């Protein structure tokens, strides 16, 4: 447990020492989502309609940006080897790294979402659903993305491959995440969407650390 906290603390500390990388991701999210209202103009009905999709796609792409550095530097300097040799199970430490990734690349998106939502003229209840959906959805993105990041370790041009590998797996989250926000905005029931998102989270919480650990082990061998 001690080692798990140390891993999360270290990853957050590293981010604090090099803030530009994270700020780039946040600015990317804000700019992409701001370009749509600017490009479309003041058609509020249309904006409200496209808001869920735009915000979710931007969230997907922003989390992708942070994935490349999830394991790469630890792999290059041999820290992953030391983690594999730790008495603490590697799966737990990998879980710690995924948690740190979410805290850095997922949670800020959730917090920014209401501000972004206002640009799209979303009402308060829809904003609430958007935040909740992102809160459940972004950890799934981090978890699934970690598998891809571990699988592409040491591969040349891994960044592009990573996107090709991970983005298709993000589709269910996109459909149900954006679906929940859209349903709320037109006054439909959102329980079904949230149930599926919850199920996806449970599933990826169970499988992703395990699959990621297996991929990391292959990479360091």
């Amino acid at each position, binding site marked *: 447990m001690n080692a798990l906290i140390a891993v999360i603390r270290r990853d957050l500390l590293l981010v604090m020492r090099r803030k530009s990388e994270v700020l780039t991701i946040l600015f990317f999210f804000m700019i992409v989502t701001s370009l749509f209202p600017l490009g479309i103009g003041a058609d509020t009905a249309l904006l409200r309609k496209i808001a869920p999709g735009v915000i979710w796609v931007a969230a997907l792409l922003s989390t992708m940006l942070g994935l490349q550095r999830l394991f790469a530097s630890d792999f290059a300097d041999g*820290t992953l080897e030391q983690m594999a040799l730790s008495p603490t199970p590697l799966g737990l430490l990998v879980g710690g790294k995924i948690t740190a990734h979410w805290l850095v690349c997922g949670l800020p998106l959730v917090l920014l979402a209401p501000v972004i939502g206002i640009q799209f003229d979303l009402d308060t209840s829809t904003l609430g659903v958007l935040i909740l959906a992102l809160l459940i959805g972004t950890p799934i993105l981090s978890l699934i993305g970690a598998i891809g990041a571990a699988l592409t370790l040491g591969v040349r041009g891994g960044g592009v491959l990573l996107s090709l590998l991970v983005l298709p797996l993000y589709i269910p989250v996109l459909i149900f995440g954006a679906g929940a926000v859209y349903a709320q905005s037109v006054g439909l029931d959102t329980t079904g969407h949230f149930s599926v998102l919850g199920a996806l989270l449970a599933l990826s919480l169970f499988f992703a650390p395990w699959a990621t650990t297996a991929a990391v082990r292959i990479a360091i061998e």
Partner: protein
Amino acid sequence: MPSNQPTLRAHSLTCVRGERTLFTGLSFEVVSGEWLHIRGENGIGKTSLLRILAGLSKPAAGSIDWNNCSIEADPSEYHRNLLFLGHRDSLKEDLTALENLEIATALDGVQISTDDALLALHRFGLRGREDLPVNCLSAGQKRRVLLARLLLRKAKLWILDEPFNALDVHAVEMLSELISEHIEAGGMAIMTSHQEILMPNGRVVQL
């Protein structure tokens, strides 16, 4: 031999890299209070052997036993007793020497106070450098940060890949002393090095 004495035993290890067979049928044993010097030309498989011994990669054939129990059967028990220092330094350039050391020991599952960590760094001549990011240190000083870990970790078996690299004469002496102390206290060490190492109770395995 009493069964409670720690032993590392390698049975007819074979290592294959790509199409090339690096070594076959390599067997040896290390017991408490002994150290092993693995020698051989560049590219003959010294690092590969150490990685196999640490359990990072699997041998093409053969097995490794720790206390008469395969290391694959109980990896966490083996890892508790093992300290591996490889070629790559596993230091984070943006973090300070102290932070790096504290994280390394946390990964090792050892709880230490900041004072212990500082003491270890001071012993390796890093007084006044504790709060500098590691990328401001020289190659030798980085190496010293790594070696400070040896002081804090109570591992029985040390596997060290070229531990004397990039160290000055004084640090080499200090490290030899540290390893000797470890072996006298019933520890074991497996090392690769191109230099002669003058320490008692050593054996040479020529690849």
